[in-house]
């Protein structure tokens, strides 16, 4: 299990390949990466992500441990950035390795649902107009936790 919280960019291809290589007992590798999304009209200048340094790593580890206890997993990777990112930059990724794909897919979804609402990150959007605004948590993200 590897949990990384960093201010710098990560190389998704390199991380995914390293995670997937050298495994002979894992039939399924699932990866997900979250990307800074523009509003669709070029009006987003950047996304700024704040986090709670003392708590973030522990919270992510607890979420990953819970996933490992619920599904048959060989390994889990979580990388999450903080700081300023521009549209198109990768914010975070999760990867799961499991003997079978159902466990790998479900665990990846579980990790995503929980780290959206239970890991101490906060997103702030910077518009090209200079306006800024904190992204509000969505009710549907909170509701998504109830299915687990």
């Amino acid at each position, binding site marked *: 299990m590897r949990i990384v919280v960093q201010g710098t960019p990560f190389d998704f291809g390199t991380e995914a390949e390293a995670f997937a290589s050298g495994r002979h007992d894992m039939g399924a590798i699932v990866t997900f990466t979250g990307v800074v999304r523009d509003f669709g009209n070029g009006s987003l200048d950047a996304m700024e992500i704040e986090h*709670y340094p003392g708590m973030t790593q522990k*919270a992510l580890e607890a979420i990953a441990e819970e996933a490992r206890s619920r599904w048959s997993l060989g390994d889990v990777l979580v990388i999450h950035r903080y700081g300023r990112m521009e549209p198109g930059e990768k914010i*975070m990724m999760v990867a799961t390795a499991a003997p079978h794909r159902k466990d790998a897919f479900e665990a990846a979804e579980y990790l995503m649902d929980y780290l*959206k609402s239970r890991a*101490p990150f*906060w997103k702030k959007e910077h518009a090209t107009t200079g306006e800024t605004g*904190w992204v*509000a948590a969505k009710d549907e993200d909170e509701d998504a936790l109830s299915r687990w």
Partner: protein
Amino acid sequence: MDVLYFAWVRERIGLPKETVATEAETVADLVAELRAREERYDLAFSDLSALRVAVDQELTDFEASIKGAREVAFFPPMTGG
């Protein structure tokens, strides 16, 4: 104890962290003490349903005890991922 603020809570109160001397027994008691201080605190804590709290870096609720706690953090609902 250390009291930390994140995201818009930090912006409204105007600082990320402060040391508070308190006899408060619960998070709610601490919030009441902070609100009585100044208007910026009162405004930041005016709607507790819009806030989350962690005591010693574990998510909890406003009724939680803070006896012996080293660190209490207030922030809006999280938006990771």
